[in-house]
């Protein structure tokens, strides 16, 4: 049991989700504690994204229960999930490239000033600079158009925005995909700093086994809508995971 006595942030129990006759999730259970990072591994179509989307309120599970801070919740919309501090960061979808860093940071939460309710650009710039500085995300300027930033910086800003908007359960959808070593390092640094804060639970979807084992406290492997492996990263090896996946491939090929 992970968490060292720290409170459980979110728990999903026996989640089932069907799309027509396809069973995307067949009784999946996961949980994460505050200050903990859970890695979700699995092939495309295994159900990782569906699972995440059940927790962001984007999908409603056909059966199963979700608990936030130990209390059962019904996440019937993204806004509802957000009200429980659940926030998902999608790699390429999160930011508006043609807007500045600070406009993205405050997107749909803009600060305004009296008497006409016009945007308070100066205050948003100031708070963005403070917030980015606070969690150690560097950009040349908060007035920079996001399109000018590197993939890693964009991702970091998306994470910073989620944290700044009081996300306490952070879902990261492939945060390291299509990123070079340096860019990955930037994100991993950020994720580890957030873990150190201890008040945020993180779930990270990933493809790279070695990287995931390195970053996460625990990992689960999702295959065909079921969890086929669960373990602490320290006690899990890449070979162990690969062996499970290999068995799966062989079974699939025999089925052809």
């Amino acid at each position, binding site marked *: 049991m992970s968490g060292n006595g720290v409170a459980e942030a979110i728990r999903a129990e026996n989640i089932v989700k069907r799309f027509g006759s396809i069973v995307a999730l067949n009784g999946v259970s996961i949980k994460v504690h505050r200050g903990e990072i859970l890695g979700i591994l699995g092939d495309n179509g295994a159900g990782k994204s569906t699972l995440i989307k059940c927790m962001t309120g984007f999908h409603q599970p056909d059966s199963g229960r979700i608990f936030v801070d130990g209390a059962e919740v019904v996440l019937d919309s993204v806004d509802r999930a957000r009200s429980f501090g659940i926030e998902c960061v999608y790699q390429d979808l999160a930011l*508006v490239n043609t807007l500045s860093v600070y406009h993205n940071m405050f997107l749909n939460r803009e600060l305004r000033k009296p008497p006409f309710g016009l945007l308070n650009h100066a205050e948003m710039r100031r708070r963005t600079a403070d917030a980015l500085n606070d969690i150690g995300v*560097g950009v*040349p*300027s908060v007035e920079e158009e996001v399109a*000018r930033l590197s993939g890693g910086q964009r991702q970091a800003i998306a994470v910073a925005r989620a944290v700044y908007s009081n996300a306490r359960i952070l879902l990261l959808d492939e945060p390291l995909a299509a990123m070079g070593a340096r860019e990955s*390092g930037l994100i991993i640094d950020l994720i*580890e700093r957030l873990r150190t804060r201890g008040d945020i639970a993180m779930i990270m979807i990933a493809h790279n086994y070695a990287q995931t084992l390195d970053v996460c406290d625990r990992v689960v492997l999702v295959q065909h809508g079921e969890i086929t492996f669960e373990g602490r990263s320290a006690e899990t090896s890449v070979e162990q995971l690969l062996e499970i996946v290999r068995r799966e491939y062989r079974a699939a090929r025999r089925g052809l």
Partner: protein
Amino acid sequence: MDTTPRGADGAKAASSAPPRRWGAGHAFRGFLIQREASVILVAVLLIIYFGFANPNFITNNNIVTLSQFVAAPAIIACGEIMLLICKEIDLSAGQTFALAPFLVFFGARFGLPVVVAILVALAICAAIGLLIGLVTVLLEVPSFVTTLGTFFLITGITLTISRGFPATPPGGKFLTGILGAFSYSEIIWAFVIVFLMHMILRHTRWGLHTIAVGGNDIAAAEAGIKVNRIKVGNFMLTAALAGFTGILEAYRVGSSDPLAGGANIMFFGVASGVIGGTALTGGAGTIVGGLIGAIVLGVLQDGFTLQGINAFLFDGIIGAAILIAMVVNIRLGRLQQSHLR
């Protein structure tokens, strides 16, 4: 892994405490400003050229004429720019332009006070925009196609209610003067509307969300922005502005023609926006750029008219000018894109 970021990005991270003001972003913004400046430069050069080429160009009479060439496209551009920014377009704005004065005319004949008739006419124009917007976002018909339909539909309505005859706009001398009979009233309206729309685009949530929807509709929706509401609202705004422009024109000319405006005025509005730097790919654009674009087009039209250029050649020259301006605009956009990577 320790908590100090490393590498080139790390170096930036370390120095981020006071955000640097002279990074690549400033060069980029400098470039953007330059882009608008280049359009201003073109406008100024054209004015200088026509000023020297024809002594009548810079006279009070001609400035009135020029302002009238500029005003209508500038106001219509305000709406079209909002739509282009959120990746939509209203091809039927020129038709709404033609319909509106007839709505005022019939409203007044119905017994409404003229001001009320104008407000009702604008509300009906906004309702047309609402219809266009709803068909576009709910039935997922591209607005290019939706407004191709309303393009003909509205002309049909205008011709039917007017029976093909022109009408005289109702109202006393004072109101008529404010709305268009006074030489500079239309351009004053244009400046006021440009100012208000500039404020809306740059300094309100509505404007910011319009840019967000055009820049990345998924991210906008993820952030909780009602994407459809933004789009529909901008269709309503565009239709109302087009209708208002039609009313101003009718009061200026003293008559409304059921076939006034049309594709011509709409494309002048769109072209003004594009010449002024609004991206056809959405997510970026400026209202002030649209005004400058309208001035460029107005100067070209007015200048060539004064030069007495062959009427057959006239459209050809205007077309070539628009084409050159748009190509330059798009090439500059590409250049910026390649700078991004």
